[in-house]
């Protein structure tokens, strides 16, 4: 027995279904019903594929008639946003360290960081990443988009390793490996859903 759920724009209904032998790994389609279920047997994970014939709904249960592609592809925008954040982090650290005055009265707010031109370049990049991030939020649920956007946290040490020649310890490599596995887990159901839409 496995739980099978049906999506509608307003709510999700679930029922228990006895699956035929060998069907747990493959698409399960009940004719006469407007839903299909796909199961990954390894994690007993259920991925709900909305009806394909009429209006299709994306993962946030919103109609997606005009799903953009090309430059407007939300996954591309997510990658762009991550790239901008990565570069801006390096610029911010350089800029903030250049003009640091820990003894001045307002230093806890960080406003004197604005004296550095590098900080201003970082601000420009942050605005660019913010705009594409807003675009991403329009199409991708936060539970998926945000964990994926944190790939930047391993790109920073990797960037230090590649471009600045910094040493990465064994423990740090383990951390990077954990993040990569986590990212793969978050991204995997998406790849399957995108394939079928």
């Amino acid at each position, binding site marked *: 027995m496995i739980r099978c759920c049906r999506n509608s724009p307003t709510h999700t209904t679930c029922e228990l279904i006895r699956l035929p032998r060998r069907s747990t790994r493959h698409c399960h389609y009940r004719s006469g019903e407007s839903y299909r279920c796909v199961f990954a047997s390894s994690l007993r994970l259920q991925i709900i594929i909305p009806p394909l014939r009429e209006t299709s709904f994306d993962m946030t249960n919103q109609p997606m008639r005009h799903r953009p592609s090309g430059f407007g592809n939300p996954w591309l925008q997510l990658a762009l946003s991550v790239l901008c954040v990565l570069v801006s982090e390096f610029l911010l650290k350089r800029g*903030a360290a250049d003009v640091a005055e820990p003894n001045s009265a307002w230093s806890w*707010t*960080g406003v004197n*960081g604005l004296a550095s031109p590098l900080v201003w370049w970082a601000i420009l990049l942050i605005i660019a990443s913010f705009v594409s991030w807003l675009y991403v939020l329009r199409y991708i*649920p*936060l*539970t998926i988009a*945000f964990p994926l956007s944190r790939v930047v946290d391993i790109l920073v040490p990797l960037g230090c390793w590649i471009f600045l020649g910094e040493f990465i310890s064994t423990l740090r490599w383990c951390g990077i490996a*954990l993040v990569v596995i*986590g990212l793969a887990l978050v991204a995997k159901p998406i790849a399957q859903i995108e394939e079928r839409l």
Partner: protein
Amino acid sequence: MSFLAFFLIVASLLSFVMAQLVLKRAMESTRKSGFLNLKFSSRVAGGIALMTISFFLTLGLLQRFDLSYLYPFQGLSVIFITVTAAVVLKEKLNLQLTIGALLISAGIVLVSLS
């Protein structure tokens, strides 16, 4: 770590998480009612205000501490946002996403501790 530093780190984390939720709400409303209305603009303004607070707090912290010291706390934001998005925004959260978010957080903490 002084109490003030801890308070500033928590404040920047909380304002960042809240900003993401507010912005997600704002962008979702554009699917139904478009961009030119008070609901959307007030939400985006609120989100940007929260992000600005978080930005300057982080900038101030960066002047005192290394980027590598502050990063574990950014790692926690993955768990915070995944959980609050599931609870507040009613997004679907399954086992795979939860384990993925936990691994990412643990990995970020490991990366920055070492």
